[in-house]
């Protein structure tokens, strides 16, 4: 190992890597040449599944069972699909801490995307389920944000608030804020219904519907979303507005009143 890392820093390393890469590309082309595509795919696929299974055994099996059949600590993963795995692992919800509160929170993801793909492939092999959406499905092209707004208010706002700031559910559970959640993960959440969120399959909320919702969220809760009137106060509505009016509105006015009514400093007696 040490030798390898030492050589990696060699000036010629870049060249070697380049040559290797070229060779690999050529080789891969040969392997994946159309004639043998199906078979090659299968091989690659089974390799990925193998890798995924290894990862699964280390990180997931203790709760979800060795074959994904589920235990008392975790539900069965048969048929949840690759989309569910991608969402749960990439948003850091899985693997969950052994003792969590009412709900598994979003946290830092510890897997690389490649590893997540392997895990997803393994779980998908256990039973058919929704696949990971492609950029084409959740990208902004051809989306109608206004229609998305209507859909959002009908399907999502009751839990996630008008602009996706999140909200409370029963007994300490909550619908998380959608701020900073990638379009892909939002799509997957709608598709698979993680934890207590109901699912919105394509049969009831079409692909176009999902695309519209994502476009709407980007418009009202994105990084560059404009709040024309000024500070949005968390987008929580009258509670934060009332607090602001008391503290900064009335507070400032009372401070001014204290100044208006105060006695002017007297000249010091000499």
């Amino acid at each position: 190992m040490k030798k390898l890392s030492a050589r990696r820093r060699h000036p010629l390393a870049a060249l070697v890597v380049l040559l290797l890469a070229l060779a690999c590309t050529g080789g891969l082309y040969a392997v994946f040449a159309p004639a043998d595509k199906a078979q090659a795919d299968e091989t690659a696929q089974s390799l990925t599944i193998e890798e995924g299974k290894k990862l699964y055994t280390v990180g997931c099996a203790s709760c979800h069972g060795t074959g994904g059949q589920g235990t008392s600590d975790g539900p069965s993963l048969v048929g949840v699909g690759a989309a569910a795995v991608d969402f749960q692992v990439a948003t850091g919800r899985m693997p969950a801490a052994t003792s969590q509160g009412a709900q598994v929170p979003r946290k830092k993801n510890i897997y690389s995307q490649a590893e997540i793909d392997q895990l997803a492939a393994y779980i998908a092999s256990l039973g058919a389920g929704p696949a990971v959406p492609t950029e084409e499905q959740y990208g902004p092209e051809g989306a109608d944000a206004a229609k998305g707004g209507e859909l959002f208010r009908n399907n999502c706002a009751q839990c996630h608030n008008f602009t996706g700031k999140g909200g409370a559910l029963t007994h300490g559970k909550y619908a998380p804020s959608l701020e900073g959640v990638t379009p892909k993960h939002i799509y997957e959440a709608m598709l698979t219904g993680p934890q207590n969120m109901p699912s919105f399959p394509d049969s009831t909320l079409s692909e176009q519907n999902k695309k519209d919702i994502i476009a709407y969220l980007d418009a009202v809760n994105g990084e560059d979303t404009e709040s024309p009137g000024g500070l949005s106060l968390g987008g929580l509505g009258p509670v934060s507005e009332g607090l602001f009016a008391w503290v900064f509105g009335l507070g400032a006015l009372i401070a001014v009143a204290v100044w208006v009514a105060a006695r002017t400093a007297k000249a010091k007696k000499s």
Partner: protein
Amino acid sequence: MSSQDIPEENLPAAQDTSHGAVKLADEQNPFADPGLPPHEPRVQDIDERAAKRSERTVALLFTVSMLATIGFIASYVTIPVDKAVYIWPIGHISALNFALGMTLGLALFCIGAGAVHWARTLMSDHELADERHPIEASPEVRAKVMDDFRQGAKESVLGRRKLIRNTMFGALALFPLSGVVLLRDLGPLPGTKLRHTLWSKGKLLVNMNTNEPLRPSDLIVGSLTFAKPEGLEEHDHGFQTEIAKAALMLVRIQPDDIKDKRSLEWSHEGILAYSKICTHVGCPISLYEQQTHHALCPCHQSTFDLSDGAKVIFGPAGHALPQLRIGVNDEGYLEALGDFDEPVGPAFWERG
């Protein structure tokens, strides 16, 4: 009970030894009112330079106000209404709103600050005392008013001519009724309108998202879908009023998990159709937790167990969500098997 019978000695002695009488420190009573303290001059009262400084400050404030007003007009004319600007730490906001608000605020605040500073530093700050006079009239005035009133009342003969008095009160009491009657046409009578919705036998369940009729296979376990009755379109007049009653929430639960027998009977293969309108005060309730099968109202937190006939398990709602009986028609689409068998939405007196 009258309060006049409170013995006088229970009330404390009047505190106000008439002011001015105890100007000098009282040896007998160290707690006596020493009277108004003597006036002490401010810096501005004795130092003309300080007064000049105050004058300049006031004038400066008024000048800043003028500039701010000019700034307001300039912003109004030059900044486009849709221009956004990033201002730390507020964020991306409308440039025009910020510019107008700040200049207007500054213009007004400086006028006020100037006036107050002027009053505080340059106007006389001698404290003055105004005498108060009792609000109550003197006994003589009171007696005079009473006499006048009695005289007037007597001259009106109202007390003697009872017929006039009674009919007049009758007339005055009755005529406001015209005003009440006029309010009748504010709205129609309720009739049985709150008991019926657009749902009826054979009406298809139309997906609110796609505007397509739903099939059982569209709904998977754990999903949540909203439906409206076939034929109700967003552009229709009266859409709002109809959807306020007809809005439907569809969930699918493993039939084994459905605890309520009638609920299971009225469902189709585990697809349950409940009114989306809360039975508490009518919020659209749809915070559905697919693992617990609980639906929470976002307005007042009434919680319903959709796997158990939508019974109330927490919160202020008084009864379960009405369930719509559904089935499948010949073409395989979900259809209603009738209207709700009880009124949807908030309870009312005639609901029964």
